[in-house]
């Protein structure tokens, strides 16, 4: 849409902001009011989610981040305040505000309402979860409450869509007038606020600036006037010398007023132990709570693998089919086997396919996270795990994102949105890719299958132990990395870990499904844009330059084979041209093929291998061999590592091609076996075998620690900045290099 049209439309559209404490059912209410007519994005410059929904042609709803107070410090709170003040870039000031209040927790929720009223916009209160309040023994006289606080109050139960018609009517009605607060700043504070307010012309911002030292209001005032900061600190000094504590006075003023209003309109009858308390007796119990937690997490992550597997296989089959179909369309045309075919199949279809295959895991993970979060268990998980994560400078909020990253770092990084503290969130994002994700499994499986002897250590298989060790390598690296980050680049005051443990409730299907839909959509859009571009780039580096001479030579050999070899007679293979593949002839073929077909297949593989060796990427691998040598790698391993930048698991395919084996599927047992034989047969020019156990371990450690995953890098960029994405890639690559170097050198020394 062009800018003038948008401006013309927004001139007529009424904007209504939704604000409320976390856990008040705000998102459920927003979804119920707007359905799928919502746009989700980010506010410019910050990673605060921006949700705008079309309520009708003339009304637009803005879902503001959940917050306990307008004393803004976190990015979420800053956005909420600046939108309400009309100071957010590109956002017109709302015409009215709906404050969502949890009826079972009136006092604390009304605190935010008193601050919103001071902003000076017309206010409607949606009194949500009245059913929960009833269950807790609280009866609210709604008309009396509305009268005493002075704004319309609409009781509702968003999860059951009760009372939504009344709320709709209130939203559609022309907005009323902003009301005057029924409370007044206490003696001492009032004078200072008045002075500042006269100077800056904004009572709300002046009070906030004075009280919230180091908060967002201070900066907003400083942007308005040069001497703001000086005036604020002078005022604070005067208050300090007269023993006035502004924040304490504010809380007492608001809670005092709230107690007076609420006392007259609510009755509380004694109830037995509430359901949530009983459930928490088990779920946060010293022993049973931990047990349930381990079981829940175990089920969650095993089900991601189990449930997602068939769909992932299906997606893979679709992309393979598409690739084959495209190749089929080229068959018999002039451009068969040419650059365009390769670009479409290898570059585009396979590239996007290798990323899209993770979509089911992302969808399932977000399904489970949304259910756990919506029912209230997530806060308990953070409560149980906080102590453990504090050890490396993080908090309980980081647990789920890090745990998720064992399946895939992409949803893990996306899940960090639940961490309010910016530095905590960044530290979590930066260590999340160190958790061994499912894409590393093919690499581990290949190396372990080929080089780790199938013996038992005690009663445990050595291969299994090495597999587990790879997971520990990631975790052990993450601890010091997080520790260092939190003490250097992301240094700051210990984040506040005040967290509400909300009442348990049934998750809302609509909220859960919308969450899954949004996460899946965001991931797919990314696969279609940046990941697409990188796929094409890596493809080009592996494809060009192509020498006509090579093609001609192989064409001649094909002709020769056709002339000399029969279609059926089981004669011996022709001599293979000098190349790396010395072990190829000894292989036992399981399906009998005619010598000609076998020879042609072999020529195809050899040609592909030679072309790849001579491509830009292949040459880079050979040029960089001195750099890889300390890790025990030859140029072929190095090039495979370079070419696997888009996705780690690509290394298996690339190595197959370089070893003149043609393309192999990482999951095919038979193919892996053949590749293992190739590995064992590979030698340095002086005849020493390339692959020893230290080399295999060094490759595994490298892939355990490196950030060879375009999807992860792009997700980090999306959730932070390019700077942090590049930082993550750089530090992980350095860590991987050092780790692989140490593994190879120590391993070799030990074996000597």
């Amino acid at each position, binding site marked *: 849409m062009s800018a003038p049209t948008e401006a013309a439309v927004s001139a007529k559209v009424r904007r209504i902001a939704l604000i409320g404490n976390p856990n008040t059912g705000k998102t459920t209410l927003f979804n119920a009011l707007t359905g799928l007519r919502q746009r989700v994005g980010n506010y410019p410059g910050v990673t605060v989610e921006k949700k705008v929904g079309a309520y009708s042609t003339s009304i637009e709803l803005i879902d503001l981040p959940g917050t306990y107070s307008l004393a803004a410090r976190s990015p979420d709170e800053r956005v909420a305040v600046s939108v309400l003040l009309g100071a957010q870039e590109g956002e017109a000031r709302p015409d009215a505000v709906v404050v969502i209040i949890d009826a079972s927790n009136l006092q*604390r929720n009304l605190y935010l309402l008193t601050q919103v009223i001071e902003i000076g916009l017309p206010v409607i209160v949606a009194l949500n979860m009245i059913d929960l309040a009833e269950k807790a023994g609280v009866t609210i006289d709604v008309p009396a409450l509305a009268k005493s606080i002075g704004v319309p109050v609409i009781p509702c139960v968003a999860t059951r869509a009760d009372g939504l018609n009344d709320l709709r009517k209130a939203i559609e009605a022309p907005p009323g007038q902003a009301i005057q607060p029924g409370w007044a700043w206490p003696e001492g504070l009032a004078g200072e606020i008045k002075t500042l307010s006269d100077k800056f012309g904004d009572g709300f911002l002046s009070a906030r600036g004075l009280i919230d*030292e180091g908060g967002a209001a201070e900066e907003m005032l400083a942007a308005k006037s040069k001497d703001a900061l000086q005036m604020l600190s002078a005022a604070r000094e005067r208050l300090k010398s007269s023993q006035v504590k502004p924040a*304490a006075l504010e809380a007492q003023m608001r809670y005092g007023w709230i107690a007076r209003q609420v006392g007259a309109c609510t009755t509380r009858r004694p109830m037995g132990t509430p359901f949530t308390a009983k459930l928490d007796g088990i779920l*946060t119990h010293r022993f049973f709570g931990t047990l349930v937690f381990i079981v829940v997490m175990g089920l969650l992550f095993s089900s991601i693998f189990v449930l997602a597997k068939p769909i992932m296989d299906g997606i893979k089959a679709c992309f393979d089919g598409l690739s084959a179909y495209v190749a089929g369309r080229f068959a018999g045309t002039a451009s068969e086997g040419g650059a365009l075919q390769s670009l479409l199949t290898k570059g585009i279809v396979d590239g996007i396919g290798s990323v899209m295959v993770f979509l089911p895991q992302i969808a399932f993970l977000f399904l489970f996270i949304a259910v756990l979060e919506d029912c209230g268990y997530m806060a308990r998980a953070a409560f149980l795990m*906080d102590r453990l994560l*504090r050890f490396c400078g993080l908090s309980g909020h980081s647990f789920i994102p890090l745990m998720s990253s064992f399946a895939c770092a992409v949803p893990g990084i996306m899940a960090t949105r639940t961490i309010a503290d910016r530095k905590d969130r960044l530290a979590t994002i930066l260590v999340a890719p160190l958790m061994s994700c499912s894409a590393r499994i093919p690499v581990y499986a290949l190396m372990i299958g080929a080089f780790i002897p199938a013996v038992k250590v005690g009663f445990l298989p050595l291969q299994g132990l090495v597999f587990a060790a790879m997971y520990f390598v990631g975790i052990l690296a993450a601890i010091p990395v997080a520790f260092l980050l939190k003490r250097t680049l992301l240094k700051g005051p210990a984040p506040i*870990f005040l967290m509400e*443990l909300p009442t348990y409730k049934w998750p809302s299907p609509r909220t859960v499904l919308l969450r899954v839909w949004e996460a899946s959509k965001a991931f797919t859009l990314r696969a279609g844009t940046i990941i697409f571009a990188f796929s094409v780039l890596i493809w080009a580096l592996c494809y060009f330059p192509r020498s006509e001479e090579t093609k001609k030579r192989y064409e001649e050999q094909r002709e020769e084979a056709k002339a000399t070899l029969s279609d059926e007679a089981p004669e011996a293979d022709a001599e293979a041209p000098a190349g790396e593949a010395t072990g190829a002839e000894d292989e036992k073929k399981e399906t009998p093929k005619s010598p000609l077909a076998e020879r042609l297949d072999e020529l195809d593989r050899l040609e592909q291998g030679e072309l790849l060796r001579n491509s830009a990427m292949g040459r880079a691998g050979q040029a960089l061999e001195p750099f890889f040598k300390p890790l025990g790698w030859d140029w072929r391993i190095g090039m495979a590592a370079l070419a696997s930048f888009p996705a780690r698991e690509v290394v298996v395919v690339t190595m197959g091609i370089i070893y003149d084996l043609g393309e192999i599927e990482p999951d095919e047992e038979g193919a892996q076996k053949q590749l293992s034989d190739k590995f064992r047969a590979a030698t340095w020019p002086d005849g020493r075998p390339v692959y020893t156990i230290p080399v295999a371990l060094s490759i595994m450690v490298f892939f355990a620690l490196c950030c060879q995953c375009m999807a992860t890098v792009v997700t980090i960029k999306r959730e932070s900045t390019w700077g942090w994405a590049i930082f993550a890639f750089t530090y992980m690559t350095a860590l991987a290099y050092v780790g692989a170097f140490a593994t190879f050198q120590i391993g070799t020394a030990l074996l000597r």
Partner: protein
Amino acid sequence: MRLSECKPGGGGSIKQIHGTGPLTQRLMELGLIEGTVVKVVRVAPLGDPIEVEVHNYHLSLRKTEAEGVELDA
């Protein structure tokens, strides 16, 4: 007595919130102000944080954060 020293089931009326800055302000915004009754519900399995009940809702906070909350003896 400090809130951080209370055993599960213990607690009392808040006498004073010590300190200044964002943490103190947030505690007060969440309703931990002078005269409010706060009760320790339980301690997390690993010894920290603690769960308290205040204004009929449940809040998790670290012991270091609860240190500034002084209760009537």
